[in-house]
């Protein structure tokens, strides 16, 4: 089972993207997935977590995610103890930042950065970084196909923003691949 933890702020779409990934792999790739938010009151701007679990078999475990394979940080101001803890050995952490990965040292983990905010401003005209960070995660992990992520966007996001988000997803995915020499 692979466990992904999303770090965002209330209103940045961290749960929407956890769901997009879950839908992509379970409806379009014959895998099983579970997506859930950090439970509790919803507050705009407050640090929030969300989770996606992915497996080849039915997922029955309903306990909290303790250690994850991937952490995705939508907002670099959230980088700190909450991001550094609860990572499996050799976990990958994908961070939205203009800085290089060296700026975010985490022992035993691979850190990948991408300036998703600039890409989002360029394509969407708004600094909404959940979908581009899904693209970045896909590039760094191969956890889902871009095509199935696009199908999830087609059913989950409003028609008005679908095409631009798909464009942004691919753009960010390519940017990260290039950076990682893939």
């Amino acid at each position, binding site marked *: 089972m692979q466990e992904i933890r999303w770090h965002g702020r209330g209103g940045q779409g961290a749960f929407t993207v956890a769901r997009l990934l*879950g839908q992509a792999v379970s*409806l379009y790739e014959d895998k*099983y997935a*579970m997506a*859930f*938010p950090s439970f509790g009151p919803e507050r705009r701007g407050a640090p929030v977590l969300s989770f996606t679990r992915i497996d080849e078999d039915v997922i*029955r475990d*309903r*306990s909290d995610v303790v250690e994850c394979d991937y952490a995705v940080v939508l907002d670099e101001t959230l980088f700190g103890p909450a991001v550094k803890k609860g990572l499996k050995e050799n976990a990958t952490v994908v961070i939205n930042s203009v800085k290089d990965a060296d700026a975010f040292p985490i022992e035993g983990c691979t850190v990948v950065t991408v300036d998703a905010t600039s890409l989002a401003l360029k394509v969407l005209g708004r600094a909404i970084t959940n979908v581009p960070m899904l693209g970045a995660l896909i590039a760094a992990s191969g956890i889902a196909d871009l095509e199935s992520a696009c199908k999830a966007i087609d059913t989950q996001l409003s028609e008005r923003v679908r095409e631009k988000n798909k464009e942004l997803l691919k753009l960010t995915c390519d940017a990260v691949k290039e950076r990682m020499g893939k």
Partner: protein
Amino acid sequence: MSGEKQFISGDEAVALAVKQAKPHVIAAYPITPQTIVVERLADYVEEGELESKYMYVESEHSALSALFGASGVGARTFTATSSQGLLYMAECLHFTSGGRYPIVMMNANRSLALPWSIFGDQRDSLSQRDAGWIQLYVENVQEAYDSIFHAYRIAEDPRVMTPVMVNLDGFILTHTYELLETLPQEQADAFIPYADYANCIKFDEENPMNIAITGGPLLNMEFRFQQQRAMNDALKVIEETDKAFGELTGRTYGGGLVEAYRCEDAEVVLLSLGSLCGTIHVVVDEYRKAGKKVGLLKLRSFRPFPVDKVAEALSGARAVGVVEKDISFGYEGAVYSEVNSALIKKGLCPLTRNYVGGLGGRNFSKEDICGMFDDLLEGAPADSVQFVNLRGDIDYGNEC
């Protein structure tokens, strides 16, 4: 014929099933973590996808009172609530079960104040044990969806005519998205055809009569006797319903009353209800791989209580742990008492222990479950009631 697949939350799945069940009247008051159910239903009605009278009421007491009246004229009805809302309905729970109104309710299991908490445990519904409602507990989103169809079929069966409460763990099920296979509408219609209560007593302009009446010492017990008989008959109807649904969809829930997993040769069994059964299931598989004989018994129907099925599944176990998100202060968890009573009735006396946890949304980890199995495999703790995962860094005062 199979349905379509969706990636959907427990709340959304319940709303979708209710839409397909086509209740004539919905009355509900929003409360976390049930809110999404009533929001979606309001949307369905507003957008014309569901032809239903949606009553916006000022409280849960009013919601169930409204359905009491609607069901009284033979309408199919639905409501949903949680926690304080369920308690606020308490008076009407008895009215509607006593009047034998086949109302279906979804309850999002949530803690009770004080301390105030919106997080999940099962103290709300378990505290309403004696309200005369059938209580089902579900493990995952698919079962939540399917159980709404079960609920209407059970509630409206002429042998039962008793309201049904379908319980979903707050947040853990209500807010978790997973894969769901829907029931094609034709199959839904065929599984729960609406039958006007032709042979039942109801408010009817053509045939005016007084119902929901006073019952003094001369008649009251006879009503209660019939209520008890209907509840006992419901055991059979719940089983028939699971079987019929299985024939239609291929999905069954252990026969409807309990779901036993690897209990046949198990030395130690953990019994639980709701979503926690999934986590226990995973640990059972891990322990079996290591050669340890453990099993899981999922209690799906808490009322009526399936004494025979519970005893049958536990008959080979030398130790039984009852894991519940509930405590009846001054004694033990409500489910634990029920299980012990069932065992004694059947002449079984395995060692039993009560693991109380998950209160106010506290996590149950796989390690917690391992700890319970290890306890029971190696000799159990002295105290019958164990608080799982209690913090050690709190000053509990002199008495502790």
